[in-house]
């Protein structure tokens, strides 16, 4: 394919490093285990799906003498099978336990990654409030001496369940039926939620339900679906919550005032997204004000938000990863959709992205500006 060859030559200039892999099944999940391993899982409904724990090629973990590490491959460290599609997977930190969620949404499954074998085994499940249709429970992990799983498909079904005893240690206790789009644990006592409507809230689980939230129907109003991510930046005040809408609107908010976004821009994407559930916005762990966005098409876009303002203006990405489009082997009609992406925990500009054609890329774009 001529265009693939062209793109590859272009890529020499665009990327420092670039790896492309073919999984046996597409994944919507990229969950880090430590900083050397990731978990992926299939989401097919008609056949068995694999859950894989992959170790990164050594050259992505070493700091010097990279040239002496010829291995560019992922190692399948552990693998398991799931009869149902997996839409989300979380690793319980400091343990060998994984929790998965998907359809049908009547329970979460708990898995064990053993030390003495390479088969990931299902060891139990956590019952959840059953929902009709295609709603499935979102999850986040409270990691502590006694880890707990925060889960729910709607605000009213939000609960925290102790992993070991299976007892419910927290309930939202509200009757609000708004659909959830993401959950994120911020510290031992707080979590953030984002509803599909764009409604955001920060909740302290030590108190009765009284989240600080934006009350208006979402920063973007007018329908569409939203997702959000809270950045883990330690430095100073300023926006640390990013909220992304399926029409391409991206808002940055300060947790102290969720009602008034600090900035609001429009991303140059083909809106609306063909599958808004796959929308994802993430903060770069090592770069100031850098965000990555995916879920609109076969690209991942990286933005530098340093000079954004609140006017809803169009912005241009700092970098766009087009690898999934150009390295696609089959028919040009079936353009792949990026299903998820994640940043490497400490390699500044390295990201992993997965697409609907079962491709998995690891890439590190070449630095052009000093700022990001």
């Amino acid at each position, binding site marked *: 394919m001529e265009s693939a060859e062209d793109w590859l*030559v272009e890529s020499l200039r665009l990327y420092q490093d*670039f790896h492309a*892999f073919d999984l046996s099944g597409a994944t919507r999940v990229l969950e880090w285990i430590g900083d050397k391993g990731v978990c992926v899982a299939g989401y097919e409904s008609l056949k068995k799906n694999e859950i894989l724990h992959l170790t990164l090629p050594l050259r992505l973990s070493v700091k010097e003498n990279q040239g002496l590490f010829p291995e560019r491959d992922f*190692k399948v460290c552990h693998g398991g099978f799931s009869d149902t599609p997996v839409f989300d997977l979380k690793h319980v930190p400091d343990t060998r336990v994984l929790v998965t969620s998907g359809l049908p949404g009547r329970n979460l499954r708990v898995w064990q990654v053993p030390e003495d074998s390479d088969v990931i085994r299902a060891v139990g499940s956590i019952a959840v409030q059953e929902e009709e249709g295609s709603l499935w429970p979102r999850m986040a992990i409270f990691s502590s001496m006694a880890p707990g799983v925060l889960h729910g498909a709607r605000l009213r079904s939000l609960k925290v369940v102790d992993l070991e005893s299976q007892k419910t240690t927290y309930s939202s206790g509200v009757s609000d039926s708004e659909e959830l789009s993401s959950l994120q644990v911020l510290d031992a006592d707080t979590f953030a939620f984002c509803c599909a409507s764009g409604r955001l809230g920060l909740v302290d689980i030590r108190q009765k339900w009284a989240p600080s939230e934006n009350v208006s129907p979402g920063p973007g109003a007018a329908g569409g679906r939203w997702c959000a991510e809270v950045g883990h930046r330690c430095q100073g005040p300023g926006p640390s919550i990013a909220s992304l809408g399926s029409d391409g609107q991206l808002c940055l908010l300060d947790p102290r005032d969720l009602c008034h976004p600090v900035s609001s821009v429009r991303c140059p994407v083909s809106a609306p997204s063909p599958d808004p559930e796959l929308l994802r916005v993430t903060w770069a762990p090592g770069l100031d004000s850098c965000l990555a966005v995916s879920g609109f098409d076969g690209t991942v876009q990286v933005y530098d938000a340093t000079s954004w303002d609140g006017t809803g203006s169009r912005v241009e990405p700092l970098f766009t990863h087009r690898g999934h489009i150009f390295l696609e082997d089959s028919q040009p009609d079936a353009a792949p959709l990026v299903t998820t992406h994640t940043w490497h925990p400490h390699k500044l500009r390295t990201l992993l992205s997965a697409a609907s054609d079962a491709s998995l890329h690891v890439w590190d774009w070449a630095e052009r500006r000093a700022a990001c």
Partner: protein
Amino acid sequence: MPEIRVTPLGAGQDVGRSCILVSIGGKNVMLDCGMHMGFNDDRRFPDFSYITRNGRLTDFLDCVIISHFHLDHCGALPYFSEMVGYDGPIYMTHPTQAICPILLEDYRKIAVDKKGEANFFTSQMIKDCMKKVVAVHLHQTVQVDDELEIKAYYAGHVLGAAMFQIKVGSESVVYTGDYNMTPDRHLGAAWIDKCRPNLLITESTYATTIRDSKRCRERDFLKKVHEAVERGGKVLIPVFALGRAQELCILLETFWERMNLKAPIYFSTGLTEKANHYYKLFITWTNQKIRKTFVQRNMFEFKHIKAFDRAFADNPGPMVVFATPGMLHAGQSLQIFRKWAGNEKNMVIMPGYCVQGTVGHKILSGQRKLEMEGRQVLEVKMQVEYMSFSAHADAKGIMQLVGQAEPENVLLVHGEAKKMEFLKQKIEQEFRLLPDAKKPRLLHGTLIMKDSNFRLVSSEQALKELGLAEHQLRFTCRVHLHDPRKEQETALRVYSHLKSVLKDHCVQHLPDGSVTVESILIQAAAHSEDPGTKVLLVSWTYQDEELGSYLTSLLKKGLPQGAT
């Protein structure tokens, strides 16, 4: 009812050497006869005494089959046929027959001339061994005798590599050797028909990997070359594998054309002669599609790639040179290396495995000061890159092959048992290879007779039920070091040294002062009688035998002076 017995000689779960004995329908066939590249003593050869202690090997074996020319598959062949003694037929493809002796001779030279080994096969032995070879064509049924027949299938991987079907009556086994399921620029993908063998024996070294795409590996190569050339450096690419050099040349040529680059690219003269010979072999061996693309580029009519003259090495400015031999152990590539090593703008790209004792192996281990002839020390400032261009089947490839051949059973060799369970389940589920109550199977277990019933269970379960402990074999070795400092400091020195040398391994310094390399433990203790001497206790389990031995010999060489 078929009973097929498979015995890997020298461990089926040991990566490094292939040599498998198969007994089928009363016939005995040896599959591959590889050398273990990690050992320097007799452990590198398979243990042939298993086949017979007293009798002649020729009487016991009906034939030997060699899958391809890599040394871990054919390296022990001359030793086996001429020093242990075997006069029966040795089957391999034509290209393998042509290339094997070249590699064996190269290896012999390194072992004897460079490392001064004594008990090694001679050049004459290599020649005598090759006289026993019967070359076969792809898809040609060869009658070894009235009952035994074999057939070779295309395996990709390297020129001449084949997978073999061994058939006696209605029983058959397919052995894959090393194969590859994704085509590259000069080799196609492995292929086999739905021959439905009773057993498929497949290499599983890479079964638990998911391989980076060929395009990205090529991209990495181009990027490295381009960067070096842009900064005015010279790039040396030592090559043996003629096919690989071809592929890289085509790649560079395309890139140079597209980017309109001016720096010269050369290949050395030694390559030209071998390459023409190889080219002829290649053309008759390969399939139609590849033949067409290849014929367009008649070997040395590249626009940008010219023949090298040794004087060019001193020309100023950037250039790229492909030179033989591949491990930098002698000849032109070593000469060029010596000229260019001192300049940090230059680069050497090692495209494959290097045998211990060669300069290639040393620089890939991180050594930057090399002792050359006449005790001259060469400081290596040039950038050293190690790129793996070898093509092996990964998990996906194995599944594809199983799907093509439709075997009744699958045997995975060269992997660790604990790391194969997932793949085993995957294959079973995909192809429903679960036991059938009507078919007899050979299995190993423990018969427990208790009260008035019998049970056949796996040995692990029996141990558990009987409350018996499984015994793990552990080896300990003592290495004496002259070091008047405290144990903790010695341990720290050991840690720093091993960490810098063993880049591929996980080396840790534990809070109690001991050092671990993977699961091998090293502790420093003071010698009971001599305080100036420290005793290092190196301890490992049976599974870590290879690394344990290597570590011990490494530590016996002492620690670098002035290490912290």
